[in-house]
């Protein structure tokens, strides 16, 4: 986040590397289709680790894919603004897009088994990335690939280069996909549930690895996960998504200490380890989150839902300067623990 960082064109770069506003994604024809992501806005600072947490159906993966223009067929994304380092991601020419994908923005996906081509050696897959982006000779690419494998903690990289994905264990494979993602020397790394399929101890190693790489290379990382506790370890800021919307956006410390949105509170409540025995909680209806809901999508599950909540979707308001939340119950302070204590203000903008 140093002001002397220069962007691609050599100008002094702004601290914000990714600026998204009003992003919406829908399947099918407009008016007839299904809205899956609604009005998502967030900013990512250079060198920051942003965590995006949400459950199935929250739209977190689709949001990331839309930034790289990798949405499945039939899905359409629109945004007021989606700029990466000053460049508009939604209006790039195909050639410019290829320049950014892999080279400036890279992704690590959840399942290393399917992210790697089983019939190509690992070395071939990594050198492919290098040669695509840097026009290196085969020998140079090979050398660089060995360096990359070593940097992600794979022992004996020269031997491993010649092996096939099935000869690696799950954790090793994920290291390989991280190496592939870093081969393009990107500035932004998107990690989409990279450890969900791995054992707990392996997960901890991969997390440590990405943190170390982030520090060494000044990478900006976006972590997408359903595991909120994990973000306590790795994220500077956390975005909470529910049913395709951002419901809370706060610095990690503030979110864990004092979550404002009822959904964030529910999530945090279900992972607290300091309550060794579960207390009877209020029963929640079992319907899945409705991304096309008219009012607040969390209303059916919310103990504090009012008529307004059910009919009008809440908008994100700023609380305490660095936190945003979308909940009607926070404005009038009627929600329990609505941020009135630690930062002295329960008012939204304009109040």
């Amino acid at each position, binding site marked *: 986040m140093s002001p002397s960082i220069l962007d691609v064109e050599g100008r002094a770069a702004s601290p914000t590397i990714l600026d998204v506003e009003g992003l919406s994604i829908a399947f099918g024809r407009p008016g007839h289709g299904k809205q899956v992501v609604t009005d998502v806005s967030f900013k990512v600072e250079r060198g920051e680790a942003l965590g995006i947490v949400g459950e199935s159906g929250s739209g977190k993966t689709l949001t990331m894919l839309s930034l790289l223009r990798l949405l499945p067929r039939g899905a359409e994304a629109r945004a007021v603004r989606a700029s990466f380092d000053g460049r508009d991601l939604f209006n790039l020419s195909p050639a410019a897009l290829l320049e950014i994908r892999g080279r400036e923005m890279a992704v690590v996906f959840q399942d290393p088994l399917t992210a790697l081509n089983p019939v190509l050696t690992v070395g071939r897959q990594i050198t492919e990335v290098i040669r695509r982006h840097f026009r290196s000779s085969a020998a140079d690419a090979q050398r660089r690939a060995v360096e990359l494998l070593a940097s992600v903690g794979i022992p004996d990289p020269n031997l491993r280069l010649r092996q096939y994905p099935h000869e690696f264990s799950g954790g090793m494979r994920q290291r390989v996909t991280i190496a592939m993602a870093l081969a393009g020397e990107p500035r932004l790394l998107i990690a989409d549930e990279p450890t969900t399929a791995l054992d707990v101890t392996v997960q901890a190693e991969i997390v440590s690895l990405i943190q170390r790489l982030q520090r060494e290379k000044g990478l900006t990382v976006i972590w997408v996960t359903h595991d909120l506790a994990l973000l*306590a370890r790795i994220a500077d800021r956390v975005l909470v998504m529910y049913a395709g919307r951002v419901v809370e956006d706060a610095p990690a410390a503030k979110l864990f200490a004092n979550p404002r949105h009822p959904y964030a509170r529910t999530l945090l409540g279900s992972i607290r380890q300091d309550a060794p025995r579960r207390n009877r909680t209020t029963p929640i209806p079992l319907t899945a989150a409705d991304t096309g809901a008219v009012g607040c999508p969390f209303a059916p599950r919310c103990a504090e839902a009012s008529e307004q909540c059910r009919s009008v979707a809440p908008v994100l308001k700023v609380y305490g300067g660095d936190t945003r939340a979308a909940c009607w119950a926070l404005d009038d302070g009627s929600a329990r623990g609505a941020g009135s204590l630690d930062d002295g203000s329960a008012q939204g903008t304009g109040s």
Partner: protein
Amino acid sequence: MSTAAALLSARGITVTYHRRSLLPLGARERPVQALRSVDLDIFPGETLALVGESGSGKSTLARVLVRTITPTAGTVAFRGSDITGIGGGALRGLRRHFQMVFQDPFSSLNPRLSVGSAIAEPLLVHGLARGRALHERVGECLKMVGLDSSVAARRPHEFSGGQRQRICIARAIACQPDFIVADEALSALDTSLQGQIIDLFQDLKERFALTYLFISHDLSVVRQISDRVAVMYLGQVVELAPTEALYANPKHPYTLALLAAVPVPDPAFERARVYTPLRGEPPSPANPPSGCPFHTRCPRAVERCRSEPPALREAAPGRWVACHLAD
């Protein structure tokens, strides 16, 4: 361990898989030892958690206990009587007392059967109810898991993941078993729904005096629901202790590593803590290390660990550890 009061008792359970090669020629494939001489007691009314990573053998052990897998060696006793070798009708009668809830709510239900039929199956198999009585019992089970009895005619694909898991639980309690194994029953569910299912499990346990074997890799969930925890590594139990004692004061290095690897939802704590990841990867059961199976990754391994496998010993009342350094 005294087996006097145990509901289920396992002694010396060993499960070895031999990989079949098509030709009798060539090098013999190395056998895979999924479980190595495991002893375990489960007491009535308790919730015992089995914790471990891939290759630990926890799922295999659960299946040996409910006798869907026959152990290569060792004995299993139910209420004191040996059930290791029984088969056929006797085994079927026994199945009434054990039920399982599986990880994936999507594939645990036959897509062609209505959920009512799925729940009715144990009742039909054991001849416990027919006709109207059957129908009523199915309705009762649905109500007990928080669903309306009118949904019995619907097919599984009409329900969400959380609801399907509830249906699987309804199926498990239908024939009033004594013992339920939940094999990663929460892993496929969203975090915010897990709490509801945990509550449901607790509720049913209290109402019907059930005993649970709870298998999970998620240590924070385990803490919420279990009375005792058994930690497994590469086919052996390495530590067994009451839940709070385990979390407060783990004795085995692997348990320590496991607990350290789980993130704590407190950023300040996490920032302050220096986490050193465990070396290496979980070894494959086909190629186990000599001596203590954990020694290749253990930060405190000594020479003895390489050569001599430690036995599970009672280091303190109720606290069992398999580690030379804990003696």
